[in-house]
């Protein structure tokens, strides 16, 4: 009972475990199923592309080491990454493993191919005397080999035809055994591990196909008399076994290389991190500049950066000025000016001047590290469309084995000549041509390439689900301030009430003083306006911010209320004397704010936030993509409509409170629209969460990386259009991949089974089948890689 109690009280924990040896969707499904069956596991998600298992578990029931054992029992490798391992180190380790895997596969493929070619040549004399091979073969590959190669081989190497058949077959037997045990070993060990767990994958098909061909050949080698007595030629298929292994290994090597390329964007991000930083430290003779490994840096230390150097860690400029190229993180092509007090991001490049800065966030908290982690998680996530492929992969292999058996029976019963041989060859071809790998790779490769491409554009898409949903959106809702507009408003007008006795400068001083405590962007404009004019501000004696209305407080003994009409109504103040002016200012796209002092209307201050250069073009792109564009704002209707007119926005919902934004999105969704919301990650967080796709827009270095489903790293609405376009192209690629993977099997398996034989006399050898199978996986990955070359307007 005590254990039950502790398991109930301990919170769930989560662990990421790197898994080695997974090759297809069935592999990841098997590991995932084994983990999900493990008592204590709350949730498990195994990703084929990232080769990781993310497991949420109850630590009172199962330990991380227990989870590693569970994975190892399925036949795959697993180890626990050290908790100190950063996203950079994890990626470096993954790259090392991938490079090693590629080297090993390539070496094995080359050796097997050479062995296969030798086996093929050595087998020629055996086939020459065999009526099935020489006369009635219906396989185009074998026919070509027999008709074009045999005469030349006989002329070039007559001695080969003098060697007794038994010597050749026994030599081939040992050669094949060697290749199977060395190059093809993992097919058999993994197939066996899967079988023990009542599961089957690509390895099962290769193992059963080549294993059956090998055993048949061994029987024909050891007891040829038994075959001859039954009226069957004792054919051997050693060369087929070796060539199949060589071709599948070649396919796997190409696939490994291509899969590595799908994460090239993530690798480029990781490589942005410099290894050392020039730091000012205290030496025996006072302050000295030393090149220190960045792991040794501490927050607060002073770092020096010269022109052309990469900024090693995040920080805040202390002295000096420069322009910094942040394009690698934000997609912003123009260098950004930096001066004392500005933030700089580690990994960006200093262009013009030298400066000193204070290191702030380091290690796993740095902006670059958070982006790398986000990208890594996104690339390892699943898109909902993957479920279809998962469902098919789950039943695929047993169904293919059943078809192979049925093929054998059908050929055995109906073949006019050499039924056993025909039946056997066709059944092996069915097993070899079937390819569950292409289905497993169709979606994850597209997710990886697409999220990488997005990062290059300064668009961080947080996973397959967000990627898929972004392609479905029909309505895009834009926040006004900081999204459609610059978010840097300035005071444009100050109109005093006719009956006010105050001086204009006095009104500015009092209003700016109270606004120093407000966090609203419009407040900043007023404070900046006063400071630029050298007006000294007072400390407010009282202050309160009223959401959706404005601010109230006391400055220098004067009771102040600054805000909209609703604010005046709260204090029963009549806005009529300035209502016409306020309306006119609003119709010009400015935000009028009424100022009341000691219960009387004093003035109206207008602040305008200019529209961003890129907003008009972005809205045009949204329209081209067929999206309805809606602008949501807390501002008054006139201002909002004026901005919307300038930007070309279809519909405006003005004067909404933050919760009103959520209600509006809810209303749009209830009309059946799929809604994306673009806004800043802080003020618009509830609306971003409510929308189908929340796009958080970054402003300068203040990037809310954790907010929203998509992060637009630069404050440019065109990035939102690029996100939608990228998502649609990715969905198209995923559908092409899935279609190709399905259709390949739907067409390939019946051809291998021999459906074309009655009409065209055409049969497929297992060798051609293995070449087709290798090609199908590679073609799917290559199609996904095309997304890297997509150009956006």
């Amino acid at each position, binding site marked *: 009972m005590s254990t039950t109690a502790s398991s109930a009280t301990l919170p769930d924990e989560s662990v990421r475990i790197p898994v080695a040896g997974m090759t297809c969707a069935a592999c990841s499904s098997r590991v995932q199923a084994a983990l999900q*069956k493990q008592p204590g596991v709350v949730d498990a998600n195994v990703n084929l592309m990232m080769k990781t298992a993310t497991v949420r578990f109850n630590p*009172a029931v199962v330990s991380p080491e227990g989870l590693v054992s569970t994975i190892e029992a399925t036949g795959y490798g697993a180890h626990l990454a050290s908790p100190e391992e950063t996203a950079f180190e994890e990626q470096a380790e993954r790259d090392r493993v991938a490079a090693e895997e590629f080297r090993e596969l390539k070496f094995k493929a080359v050796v097997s191919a050479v062995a296969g070619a030798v086996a093929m040549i050595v087998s020629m004399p055996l086939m020459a005397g065999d009526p099935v091979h020489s006369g009635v073969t219906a396989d185009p590959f074998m026919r070509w080999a027999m008709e074009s190669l045999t005469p030349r081989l006989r002329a070039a190497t007559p001695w080969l035809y003098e060697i007794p058949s038994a010597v050749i077959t026994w030599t081939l037997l040992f050669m094949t055994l060697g290749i199977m045990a060395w190059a093809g070993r993992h097919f058999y060990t993994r197939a066996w591990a899967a079988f023990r767990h*009542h*599961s089957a994958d690509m390895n099962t098909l290769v193992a059963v196909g080549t294993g059956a061909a090998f055993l048949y050949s061994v029987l024909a080698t050891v007891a040829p008399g038994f075959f001859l007595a039954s009226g069957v030629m004792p054919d051997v298929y050693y060369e087929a076994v070796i060539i199949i292994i060589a071709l599948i290994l070649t396919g796997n090597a190409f696939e490994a290389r291509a899969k590595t390329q799908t994460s090239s964007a993530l690798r480029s991000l990781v490589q942005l991190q410099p290894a050392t930083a020039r730091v000012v430290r205290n030496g025996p003779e006072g302050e000295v500049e030393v090149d220190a490994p960045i792991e040794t840096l501490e927050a607060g230390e002073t770092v020096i950066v010269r022109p052309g150097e990469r900024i090693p860690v995040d920080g805040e400029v202390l002295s000096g000025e420069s322009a910094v190229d942040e394009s690698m993180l934000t997609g912003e092509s123009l260098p950004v000016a930096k001066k004392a007090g500005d933030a700089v991001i580690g990994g960006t490049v200093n262009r013009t001047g030298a400066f000193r800065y204070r290191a702030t966030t380091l290690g796993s908290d740095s902006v670059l590290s958070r982006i790398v982690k986000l990208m890594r998680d996104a690339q390892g996530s699943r898109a909902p469309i993957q479920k279809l492929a998962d469902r098919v992969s789950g039943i695929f292999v047993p169904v293919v084995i059943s078809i192979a058996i049925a093929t054998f*029976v059908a050929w055995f*019963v109906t073949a006019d000549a050499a039924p056993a041989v025909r039946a056997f060859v066709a059944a092996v071809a069915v097993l070899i041509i079937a390819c569950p790998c292409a289905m497993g790779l169709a979606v994850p490769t597209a997710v990886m390439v697409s999220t990488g491409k997005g990062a290059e554009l300064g668009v961080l898409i947080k996973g397959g689900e967000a990627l898929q949903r972004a392609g479905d959106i029909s309505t895009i809702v834009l926040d006004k301030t900081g999204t459609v507009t610059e978010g840097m408003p300035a005071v444009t007008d100050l109109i005093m009430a006719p009956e006010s006795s105050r001086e204009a400068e006095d009104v500015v001083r009092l209003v700016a003083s109270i606004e120093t405590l407000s966090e609203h962007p419009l407040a900043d404009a007023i404070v900046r306006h006063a400071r630029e004019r050298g007006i000294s501000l007072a400390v407010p004696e009282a202050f309160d911010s009223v959401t959706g209305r404005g601010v109230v407080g006391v400055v220098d003994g004067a009771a102040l209320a600054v805000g909209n009409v609703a604010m005046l109504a709260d204090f029963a103040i009549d806005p009529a004397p300035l209502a016409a002016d306020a309306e006119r200012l609003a119709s010009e796209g400015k935000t009028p704010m009424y100022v009341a002092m000691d219960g009387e209307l004093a003035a109206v201050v207008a602040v305008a936030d200019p529209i961003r250069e890129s907003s008009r073009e972005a809205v045009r792109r949204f329209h081209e993509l067929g999206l309805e564009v809606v602008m949501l704002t807390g501002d008054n209707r006139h201002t909002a409509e004026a901005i919307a007119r300038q930007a070309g926005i279809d519909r405006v919902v003005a004067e909404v409170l933050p919760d009103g934004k959520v209600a509006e999105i809810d209303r749009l969704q209830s009309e059946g629209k799929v809604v994306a919301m673009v806004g800043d990650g802080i003020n618009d967080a509830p609306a971003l969460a409510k929308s189908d796709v929340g796009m958080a827009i970054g402003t300068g270095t203040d990037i809310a990386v954790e907010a929203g489903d998509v992060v637009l790293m630069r404050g440019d609405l065109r990035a939102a259009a690029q996100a939608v376009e990228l998502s649609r192209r990715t969905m198209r690629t995923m559908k092409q991949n899935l279609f190709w993977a399905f259709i390949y099997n739907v067409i390939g398996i019946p051809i291998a089974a021999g459906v074309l034989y009655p009409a065209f006399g055409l049969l497929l050898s297992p060798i051609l089948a293995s070449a087709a199978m290798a090609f199908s996986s590679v073609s799917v990955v290559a199609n996904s890689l095309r997304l890297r070359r997509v150009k956006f307007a």
Partner: protein
Amino acid sequence: MTISGIDWLVIVAGIAAIAWVNWYFFVAGRKPAALQREQHDDNPS
């Protein structure tokens, strides 16, 4: 086309093999999971 005794044998063996493959991968594989889940539900610790 006449079906010989050996043909009948191959047909029956083929049907049996298909049945076994489907039973092994789709039915037998689920039993341990279901049993494990039941045991886990009985004793959540």
